């Protein structure tokens, strides 16, 4: 048993030469990087650059055409590796089960695997919801929640697993800036509190530079650069520069229309 499993801390994730095509269209073109235990690693890039597909590979929802993913040095295709380590994913949409209440959603993992008694599950659900700043909403249905609340419930659901690795898919998309800040604070707080390894996929520059220990820029299925936020800012890579400095300027619009 690895140290990560024994002490419950974050796990090391290695992605090696990952390639994936859909209908002959390459989406990932040999992606490689390593996420250290307890690190917040942000994968940033424009829409359609293969970020979400990459996350799905890491959690085992997609199979690569080539390459491999290692958790604590073991390939995720090896038997029992996925059940040996506790991993959770916070989906872009939240992906809460609409037919279940918030409480049932958050406690689903424990209830389905019969890991705790119903009373204990109720207590854990309340605790986890409190951790993400939500109280008294256990009996509400996801359709009654705002986008930000859904995201936080999704985070609470992932916390129930007591994960060693959390994957966040666009955690601040569709959220107002105040809620986005709350979510970003939550990501950092979780790292401090449970030393979880976090892999965040986002095209939100403020979030990426705010929470990342290291970040990678992915463009058209290829990693362009990996470094600390300061290193990425100093990069002379024109694609990285273009992505980081893209800005809406109303003056340009008025010139263009003339």
């Amino acid at each position: 048993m690895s140290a990560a499993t024994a002490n419950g801390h974050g796990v090391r994730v290695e992605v090696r030469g990952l390639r994936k095509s859909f209908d002959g269209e390459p989406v990932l073109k040999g992606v490689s990087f390593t996420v250290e235990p307890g690190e917040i690693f942000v994968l940033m890039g424009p829409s359609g650059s293969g970020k979400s597909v990459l996350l799905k590979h890491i959690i085992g929802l997609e199979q690569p055409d080539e390459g491999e993913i290692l958790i604590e040095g073991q390939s995720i295709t090896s038997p029992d590796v996925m059940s040996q380590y506790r991993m959770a994913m916070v989906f872009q949409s939240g992906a809460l089960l609409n037919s279940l209440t918030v409480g049932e959603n958050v406690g689903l993992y424990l209830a389905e695997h019969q890991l705790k008694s119903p009373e204990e599950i109720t207590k854990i659900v309340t605790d986890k919801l409190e951790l993400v700043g939500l109280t008294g909403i256990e009996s509400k249905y996801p359709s009654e929640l705002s986008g930000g609340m859904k995201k936080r419930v999704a985070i609470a659901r992932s916390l129930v697993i007591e994960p060693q690795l959390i994957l966040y898919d666009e955690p601040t998309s569709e959220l107002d800036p105040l809620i986005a800040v709350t979510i970003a604070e939550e990501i950092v707080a979780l790292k401090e509190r449970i030393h979880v390894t976090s892999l965040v996929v986002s095209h939100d520059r403020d979030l990426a530079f705010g929470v990342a220990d290291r970040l990678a820029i992915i463009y058209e299925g290829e990693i362009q650069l990996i470094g600390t936020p300061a290193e990425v800012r100093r990069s002379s890579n024109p694609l990285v520069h273009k992505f980081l400095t893209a800005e809406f300027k109303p003056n340009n619009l008025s010139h263009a229309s003339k």
Partner: protein
Amino acid sequence: MFQNIGELLTLFWRTLKALPLVWRQRQKVFDQLFEIGNASLLMACILSLFIGGVITLQSGPVLVERGFGQVLGGIVGLSVCKELAPVMMSILIAGRIGSAMAAEIGSMSVYQELDALRTMNINPVQYLVLPRLVAISIALPTLVIFSILIGWFGGAMVSAFNERIAISFQGFFSNLRENVHFLSLVNGVLKSFIFAVVIGVVCCHQGLVTMGGPRGIGRSVTKAVVNSIVLILILDYVLTRVLIDLK
């Protein structure tokens, strides 16, 4: 097409393998049973009453005119029991319950709820397909027994009150008892059980493979219902041929 059949058989096999876990999912099975009963009972009652009535109205006057009125109970009894109740109920359930299954699982697929289940190590076959398949396999044969009784009653009513037939309740049921045996009932119920499995597997499979947003869900629902009905009718012939000696 062959790929589809392969996928259906695989899903059926995976659900069978999950069968020992059904006790864990009992609450969902009860919920589904309630859903099926609630959605179908009244409709089954009306449909069966009129099916029995129509078959009596069609065959009764012809038989009476030719002096064979005394066999009407047997003919209606057997038709309803072996053929009409199982097939019509199965088509009704495919339309009402199968479509709901495909739509619910389909929307879960489109909105990443199935992916969320998988990331929590919850098998969608155990969590979603198993309780639905078990519930429909219990509910449809039960509805068919109910439908047979109502169908017979509908036939007897028309037989007694239509002046061109005018065969009493006693006369109708006496002939029915002579011709419809326990194995005839087993025949109808067995057919409906097999149809229930087909509806459950086809509709859940369509739900699981749904892609492409609300339009994809609509396509899946249509496909699930049409495929179920086509398979029911083809299997009906095959089963009738196999069970033909089952009196």
